[in-house]
C-alpha cells in the first residue's frame, strides 16, 4: 500500500473508514451508549444505516444481505442487551455458514469485569456461535482486526465473526499513515488429484448413483458445475433445504428436497442408491433421518470445503477436502457419460408411483395452492424467504425454485422470526428484485416490529402470511406423535394482522375477504413497496410426507 499523509483518527472513525474501504454500503443495527462513538462516525459516512427495531431483526437483515449476495454483511449493536439480542441471528448464521460481521460496543476497558451498566461478556457468549470473535484492545488493533474479520467470515466455509469494541477504544486517537487492504477470502488449497481420480472411478463404476447437493454448492457458486456434472454422468439429484435452487426443481434429473419432508420417491431413490455423491452437504439429521438407515447400500463420496465435515456423521469411502466448485470442475472432464437406462428408468418409476402429492395445488385457499399462485405471479428473478414451520416446508416442497440464492431460509437453527427481516435485508442488497417472505402467524410475531423498518425503508417486500391460528408444526407433531394431546400450540388470541400491518405503515390485503383471491394476490404482488398479504389456512393441514423424528427416511408417514 502506498504511504499516505498520516491522519489522526478515533477508533470509531477507523472502523467506519475500514467498512467503507471494504465496500460495505449498508449496515443494519441499533445504537446504544457503548457504540455511540461508532454511530457518530457513521453519521458522516456514505454508508446507509438501517435502523432495526430489535437487534435480532438487524442481525437477520444483515443475513438477508449476505445470503442474497454471498458477500459478508454487517450488523451492529450496543453492549449488554444489544449484544445478547444479536446472538440468535449470529447463531443462525453459524449453522447455515453465512458470512456476517457483527460489531458490538462494549463498556470501556477499565470497567470490564465490574458488572458495569449494560455490561455482558459478549466475547464469552459469542465463542460457541461464531467462526471467530475478537475483543479489541486498542484502536491500532482495529486496523488488523476489521479486515481480518471480513477475511475470516468469507474464507473457506463462511461464517459469522463478532468484533467487540470497548467504548474507550472507539474514542482512542491514533495516527494512521497506512490503510490495510480490505479483507477478502483466502485461496482454498487445491484438492488432492488422486482423490479426484478415485471419485471419478467410483462414479463411472456406479450402477445407481445419486448426487446429493447441500448449501455449500450455493456458497461456492457451484450450482452450474453441479448441474453440468449431473447432466454428463446422468445423476439423479437430491437437494437439502439449503441447496434448493442449485438445480432447477423441474430439471429432469431433480428429485427435489430429501429428508424429513421430502417426496417419497426422493427418499426411496436414496434408499436404493449404490453411490452417494455428497457435495457441500453435512448429513444433517433432518436430511438423513436415522443415519444407519440412510443410503444403507451406498458407497459415499463426500466433497466439502470443511475437512471436519468429512467422516463426521458418515464415513466416506472417498472424502475430498476442497472448494466444491473446483472439485466438480475437475471431476467433469474425467467422468464418463453412461446411458444409465436401468437406474434412470427405476427413478422415473419411483417418481411416477410416489410423487410429491400437493393436494389443493389449484386452490389458492390451500397452502400448496397459495404458494403456487404466488409463484405464478413471479419469475425466477424473485427472491423467496421464509420463516420457520409448516409454511417453510410447504414452500420448500412446492415453490418452483430455479436459481441459487433465490431461496433464503433458516435451515440449521430453524429460527422463527428470520423471514421478514431477512427479506428486508435481501431487498436492501438487491432492490431491483421482488422479495417474497412466506411466514406464519407464529413466526411473524417473533419479529413483527420490523414491519415499521420495512415501511421506513420502503423495501419491495411482500409478506405472505399463512395464518392457521396455531404453531402448526407443533400442532402437527402433537396430533401425530402425542396422541392428539394439543397443548400450547393453538392460539386463543389472534391479532388483526391487517390492522397491525397498517398500524406499522405497511399496506395489507386480506385474501380471505377477496372475492377473487388470485386477482387480489396478483395486484398485491405487482404493487411496488412493502405489503402484507394475509391468507387463512385450515389448522388441520399437515406437511406430508413426514419421517417421524428418529426414524429412517424410508419410514415416511402420509403423502
Amino acid at each position, binding site marked *: 500500500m502506498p504511504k499516505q499523509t498520516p491522519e489522526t483518527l478515533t477508533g470509531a472513525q477507523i472502523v467506519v473508514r475500514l467498512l467503507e474501504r471494504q465496500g460495505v454500503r449498508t449496515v443494519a443495527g441499533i445504537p446504544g451508549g457503548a457504540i455511540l462513538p461508532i454511530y457518530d462516525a457513521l453519521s458522516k459516512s456514505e454508508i446507509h444505516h438501517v435502523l432495526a427495531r430489535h437487534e435480532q431483526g438487524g442481525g437477520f437483515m444483515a443475513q438477508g444481505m449476505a445470503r442474497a449476495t454471498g458477500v459478508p454483511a454487517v450488523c451492529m449493536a450496543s453492549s449488554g442487551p444489544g449484544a445478547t439480542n444479536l446472538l440468535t441471528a449470529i447463531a443462525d448464521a453459524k449453522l447455515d455458514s453465512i458470512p456476517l460481521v457483527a460489531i458490538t460496543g462494549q463498556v470501556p476497558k477499565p470497567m470490564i469485569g465490574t458488572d458495569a451498566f449494560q455490561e455482558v461478556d459478549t*466475547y*464469552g457468549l459469542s*465463542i*460457541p456461535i461464531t*467462526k*471467530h*470473535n475478537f*475483543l479489541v484492545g486498542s484502536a491500532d488493533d482495529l486496523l488488523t482486526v476489521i479486515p481480518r474479520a471480513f477475511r*475470516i467470515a468469507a474464507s473457506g466455509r463462511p461464517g459469522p465473526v463478532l468484533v467487540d469494541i470497548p467504548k474507550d477504544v472507539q474514542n482512542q486517537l491514533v495516527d494512521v499513515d497506512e490503510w490495510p487492504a480490505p479483507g477478502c477470502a483466502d485461496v482454498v488449497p487445491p484438492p488432492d488429484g488422486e482423490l479426484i481420480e478415485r471419485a471419478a472411478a467410483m462414479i463411472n463404476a456406479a450402477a445407481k448413483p445419486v448426487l446429493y447437493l447441500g448449501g455449500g454448492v450455493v456458497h461456492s457458486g457451484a450450482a452450474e458445475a453441479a448441474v453440468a456434472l449431473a447432466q454428463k454422468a446422468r445423476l439423479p439429484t437430491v437437494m437439502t433445504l439449503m441447496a434448493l435452487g442449485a438445480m432447477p426443481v423441474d430439471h429432469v434429473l431433480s428429485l427435489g428436497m430429501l429428508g424429513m419432508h421430502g417426496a417419497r420417491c426422493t427418499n426411496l431413490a436414496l434408499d436404493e442408491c449404490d453411490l452417494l455423491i455428497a457435495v457441500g452437504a453435512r448429513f444433517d439429521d433432518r436430511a438423513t433421518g436415522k443415519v444407519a438407515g440412510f443410503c444403507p447400500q451406498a458407497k459415499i463420496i463426500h466433497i466439502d470445503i*470443511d*475437512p*471436519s465435515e468429512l*467422516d*463426521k456423521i458418515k464415513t466416506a469411502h472417498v472424502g475430498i477436502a476442497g472448494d466444491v466448485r473446483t472439485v466438480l470442475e475437475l471431476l467433469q472432464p474425467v467422468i464418463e457419460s453412461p446411458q444409465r437406462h436401468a437406474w434412470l428408468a427405476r427413478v422415473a418409476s419411483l417418481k411416477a408411483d410416489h410423487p410429491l402429492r400437493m393436494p389443493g395445488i389449484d386452490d389458492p385457499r390451500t397452502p400448496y395452492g397459495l404458494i403456487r399462485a404466488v409463484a405464478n405471479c413471479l419469475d425466477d428473478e424473485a427472491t423467496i424467504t421464509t420463516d420457520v414451520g409448516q409454511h417453510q416446508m410447504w414452500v420448500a416442497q412446492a415453490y418452483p425454485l430455479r436459481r441459487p440464492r433465490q431461496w433464503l431460509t433458516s435451515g440449521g437453527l430453524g429460527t422463527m422470526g428470520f423471514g421478514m427481516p431477512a427479506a428486508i435485508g435481501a431487498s436492501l442488497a438487491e432492490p431491483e428484485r421482488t422479495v417474497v417472505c412466506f411466514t406464519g402467524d407464529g413466526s411473524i410475531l417473533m419479529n413483527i416490529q420490523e414491519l415499521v423498518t420495512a415501511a421506513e425503508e420502503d423495501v419491495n417486500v411482500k409478506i405472505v402470511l399463512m395464518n392457521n391460528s396455531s404453531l402448526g408444526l407443533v400442532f402437527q407433531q402433537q396430533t401425530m406423535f402425542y396422541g392428539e394431546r394439543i397443548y400450547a400450540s393453538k392460539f386463543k388470541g389472534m391479532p388483526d394482522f391487517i390492522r397491525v400491518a397498517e398500524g406499522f405503515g405497511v399496506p395489507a390485503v386480506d385474501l380471505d375477504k377477496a372475492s377473487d383471491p388470485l386477482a387480489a394476490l396478483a395486484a398485491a404482488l405487482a404493487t411496488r413497496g412493502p405489503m402484507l398479504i394475509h391468507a387463512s389456512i385450515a389448522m388441520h393441514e399437515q406437511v406430508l410426507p413426514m419421517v417421524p423424528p428418529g426414524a429412517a427416511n424410508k419410514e415416511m408417514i402420509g403423502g
Partner: protein
Amino acid sequence: MNSLTRTENQALARTVLELDVNNHAGVMSHVVGLFSRRAYNVEGILVMPVGSGATSRIWLLVNEDERLDQMVKQVEKLEDVLAVRRHGAEHEVFVRLEEFFV
C-alpha cells in the same frame, strides 16, 4: 469429574494433544469450549508461553473416545490454533507433573 475412580480412570486409554496457539486472553476458552460443549472431559491441561510469548503451547490430556478424531479437526479449525500434534499416553509431559497432584 465423573464417577470413575482414579484407578479406573487411569486404566482408560489416554491421548496427549499438543497445540501451538496464539497467546492472548480467550484462546483457552475457545479450545476448552469445544470439549465442554460435547461433554468431553479434559483430564489435564498445561499451558506456557513459548519463545517471545507471541505463541503458547497447550498440552491437553484426554481420554480416548470415538469422538477424538472429530475433536482434533474442530480444534484445528480454530483461528488461533496454529498446529495440533497427537501423542500417546506415554508422553512424559504430564507424567513429570504427577508429584504435584498427590
